[in-house]
């Protein structure tokens, strides 16, 4: 049983502002059914440019419903500038707090709000320089950075509680860790220029893949009685065949994606995709 506050229970049992406004000034839909929560908010301004009405529809747990209900209540009477200042912590505070594992519900509210305001201001949805870090839940580096700086998160587990990133297959936890490190090193010192990789010719790429398999990948697979063979490289598709214990192992798909592909992305080029051929 979750330790929900009375305020969360109240907003869950009697949610305010359920529905959709016709011809809204701002509208946004975030989350997805695969993630287990999704939120659509709409708002309308009055003649003084203050939010007259805000409504929501949500698919989610009790705290998702309560967070959306709280957010729409908080929005009413605010100007766009005031609304932009609402953070996920404000939503959680309004509800008297949320369990740590449920903080992502308040983050979802803040994201929906930001996107709805963007839609009102006529901005584009997601700027293209954002990169998806967590593929299971579609969380970008910018979203993770925002959650880290606003909520002073220091561990991967906290980032997962707030954004869900890393909560699926867990493959991206190293990358989340490096974002945390980057955020805190940025805060103190001067920013480091990102390392630019030179564009590879196909021959260079194949050579590097061969080397990476030989040096980094094969020894580890051999340790478990398995082996891997490079069959072909077509563009960024790396075709491999598994041998030895890998060939009959149920977990070999996970190994290919979770280990071989990650290693190759790291050592050769982030665009590479590993595929198994018989």
């Amino acid at each position, binding site marked *: 049983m979750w330790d929900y506050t009375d305020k969360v229970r109240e907003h869950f049992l009697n949610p305010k502002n359920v529905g959709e406004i016709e011809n809204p000034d701002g509208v946004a839909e975030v989350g997805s059914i695969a993630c287990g*929560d999704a939120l659509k908010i709409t708002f309308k301004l009055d003649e003084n440019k203050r939010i007259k009405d805000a409504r929501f529809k949500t698919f*989610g747990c009790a705290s998702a419903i309560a967070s959306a209900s709280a957010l729409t209540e908080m929005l009413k009477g605010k100007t766009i500038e005031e609304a932009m200042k609402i953070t996920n912590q404000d939503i959680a505070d309004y509800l008297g707090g949320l369990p740590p594992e449920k903080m992502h519900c308040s983050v979802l509210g803040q994201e929906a709000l930001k996107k709805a305001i963007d839609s009102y201001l006529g901005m584009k949805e997601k700027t293209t320089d954002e990169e998806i870090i967590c593929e299971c839940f579609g969380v970008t580096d910018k979203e993770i950075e925002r959650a880290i700086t606003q909520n002073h998160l220091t561990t991967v587990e906290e980032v997962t509680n707030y954004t869900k990133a890393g909560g699926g297959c867990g493959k991206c936890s190293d990358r989340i860790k490096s974002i945390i490190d980057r955020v805190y090193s940025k805060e103190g010192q001067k920013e480091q220029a990102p390392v630019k990789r030179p564009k590879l010719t196909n021959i260079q790429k194949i050579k590097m893949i061969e080397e990476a398999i030989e040096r980094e990948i094969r020894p580890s697979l051999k340790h478990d009685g398995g082996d891997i063979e490079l069959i072909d490289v077509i563009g960024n598709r790396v075709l491999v065949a598994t041998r030895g214990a890998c060939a009959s192992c149920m977990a070999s798909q996970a190994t290919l994606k979770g280990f071989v592909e990650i290693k190759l992305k790291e050592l050769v080029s982030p665009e590479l995709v590993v595929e198994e051929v018989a």
Partner: protein
Amino acid sequence: MKTIYLDNNATTMVAPEVIDEMLPYFSDLYGNPSSIHSFGGEVAKKIAEARQKVASLLNADPDEIIFTSCGTESDNAAILSALSLNPGKNHIVTSRVEHPAVKVLCERLATKGYRITELPVDSDGLIDIDAYRRSLTPDTAVVSIMWANNETGVIFPVEHMAYLARERGILFHTDAVQAAGKIPINMRNNQIDMLSISGHKLHAPKGIGILYIRRGTSFSPFLIGGHQEKGRRGGTENVPSIIGLGKACELAYQNLENENGYIKSLRDRLEDGLINKIPRCKVNGHRQKRLPNTSNMSFESVEGESILLLLDQYGICASSGSACTSGSIQPSHVLRAMGVPYTMIHGSVRFSLSKYNTEEEIDFVIDIMPKIIERLRQMSPYWSHEQTACTGV
């Protein structure tokens, strides 16, 4: 408000007869069964009786039964024993839908160099026997497959699977925590080497379990200490709970047939009622090959935790495979293994019944549930009213 308890796969009410049987062993008859004096000896006799009752439920011999602290201990003890007795073999066969007591243990063993085969299940939750047969190799030390799944109630053909393992000289363990007391188990009719049971799933208290070890099957103890349980499980016996479990097994045995007819009819009444009244819902798991008391249903476009908390407002207790209820971010590994779409997993609810449920209770749930689902669907961005066709079959 009256509690309507439909979460019996999580835990059950301790039967009043069981409590009566236990109480004297807290107060007047507190002797240690290992003592030489007759005050302790009386308790030892009572434990022997309890062991006999447990054995009768399984059609086993009393000396094939050891008492443990829970189902998890039994599962751990069985698998670790099999591994330590087969030092040259490093392969374990299990399924993708096991209880964490087996699943997480195997994941841990994988990091220590064991090779784990997790057999997949199909959309009905069933295992492909040919895939199972192929997975058995000369280096397989043990197979651990649950008798019935806790989330869907789907029953696996463990007796046939144990036969195939025995043919190849491989030890076979089954987690029968959900099956025991709900379907007949006859250990004289199969080749299962080890079997786990938990007391609190069959109206005995929490904190007591059983590990069945077939006579002739070697066993390396998990808890090492005194000579209790013939040296197979150290630690002073949990006397009141053992006696309670004996009584619970006796009751379960007496009631097996009758109760199952009754419980199954209530379960079917609940499913039919909900399918008739709620559009776009479906039953997860094979409709026939499953426990008579379990129903796992999915309601499209709504989320499980919200359903459970609204049911809670009416005193109705159930559980869900939704991610949000568990505190993990991923929803049920069982429903995912079956390929149930996410839209349906998040909206899944498990109802699990017992002999203490009544027709009135079921009818109350059939009355309340459509209102709850409708209310949440009104709030859901994924729901539109054109979606009314029922996919319940």
